[in-house]
């Protein structure tokens, strides 16, 4: 702290400029609003804080080192292909949610992408749909679908391992989970008619998810640590970033 005050004072503020800024500030109030008035309803804040530090620790001490090791072993081209493979598998989630939001052009494009990439693109390892046919991805999930119909986020919930979420998006995980083939492939019907998740191959979908997550992380090493640098207080920071980002996605 002493080091800052040792530096020579520079000509920081001219009084003239000060005036303009005062005027400028009022100008900005409608853009950013008054944080004091935007009091967030956060009944789980105690638990959320705890879970945030748990997740943060998990990322730093488990996921990040694992992803770095994986990055060292698997070349980037391979990791990108694996990433595309998993993305392609999640087509049903995007298809359903684009359709539910009546984004029919996107639904069509997604279908085209799935057909092309699953065949010419070798099970989704490559993306000729984008590079040759110019078909773009349109990621949508059920939380966004609900949001598009005016359902608010509700209070914030930090999920174990999955990270920041809110009431709406947490509930929405279930329909998306059902549409995700890496999960539903392993739902088997028991003799008494109940559905048992994973059945005999209990670890297969967990393993698939783990590879997907590690692979994704390996392509984004350092980004979380970097993001964290802007946090004065980690939990409210991540909460804010999450909610702002979701609102933007829903608005699109």
């Amino acid at each position, binding site marked *: 702290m002493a080091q*800052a005050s040792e530096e020579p004072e520079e000509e920081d503020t001219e009084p003239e400029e000060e005036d*303009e*800024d005062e005027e400028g500030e009022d100008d900005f109030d409608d853009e*950013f609003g008054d944080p004091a008035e935007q009091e967030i309803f956060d009944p789980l804040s105690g638990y959320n804080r705890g879970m945030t530090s748990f997740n943060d620790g998990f990322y730093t001490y488990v996921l990040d080192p694992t992803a770095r090791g994986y990055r060292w072993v698997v070349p980037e081209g391979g990791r990108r292909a694996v990433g595309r493979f998993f993305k392609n598998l999640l087509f049903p989630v995007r298809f359903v949610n684009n359709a539910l939001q009546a984004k029919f052009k996107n639904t069509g494009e997604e279908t085209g992408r799935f057909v092309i990439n699953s065949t010419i693109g070798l099970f989704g390892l490559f993306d000729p749909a984008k590079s040759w046919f110019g078909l773009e991805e349109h990621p949508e999930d059920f939380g966004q679908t609900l949001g598009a119909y005016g359902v608010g986020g509700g209070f914030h919930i930090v999920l174990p391992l999955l990270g920041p979420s809110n009431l709406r998006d947490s509930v929405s995980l279930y329909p998306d989970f059902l549409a995700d083939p890496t999960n539903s492939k392993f739902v088997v019907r028991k003799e008494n008619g109940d559905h048992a998740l994973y059945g005999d191959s209990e670890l297969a979908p967990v393993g698939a998810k783990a590879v997907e997550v590690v692979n994704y992380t390996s*392509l984004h090493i350092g980004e979380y640590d970097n993001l964290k640098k802007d946090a004065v207080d980690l939990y*409210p920071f991540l909460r804010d970033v999450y909610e702002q*980002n979701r*609102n933007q996605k829903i608005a699109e």
Partner: protein
Amino acid sequence: MRNPILTAILGLFLLFGFVPFGQADEAAEITKMTKEKVNNIITYLRDTSLEKETRNKQIIAEVNTIFDFKLMAQLSLGKQWKKTKKRQRKEFVKVFVKRIQQSYLEKLDLYTDEEVIIGDAKQTKKKRAVLTTYLVSADDDKKEMIYKFRKHKKRGWLVYDVNILGVSFIQTYRSQFAGVLKTKTMDELIEDLKNSEKS
């Protein structure tokens, strides 16, 4: 009309009169300026002969001409700004600017030949403009980054906020500082910022 190129440009605008001349001109100026700055910064990043410290200094010098860091500091405090003493303001601006410049440089360290696509700036108000850019990463992730500009009386168009994937830099700091200041004093906040800078 001494300058023939200028005359030609003016002529074109008059010909295609669907854009208000002044606005399109200013917006084009912003786009041009940002492209130039981004290109300069990428050149510095790719120049492996530069020592990191010199490189960072050059980048900051480049960035300083296009960012209004002081306004960013002020906006991040919101209403509190008016309540703070002059000495505190000065100190706060100093630590805050240092912090965000550092954070910016560290973000650039992650840069690995991503493609930067710069769209066309749009003037939203007389003194405001936005410019949408995209950063295309290794796994074809397209990150949207919106630069928000304000026209400064003397310095012209300057960035006062950056929106990355819908997350406003200023908004995020604003609610964090508001949260901290509920339980702590301004001096304590400044102290906290100074301390975190060292770690």
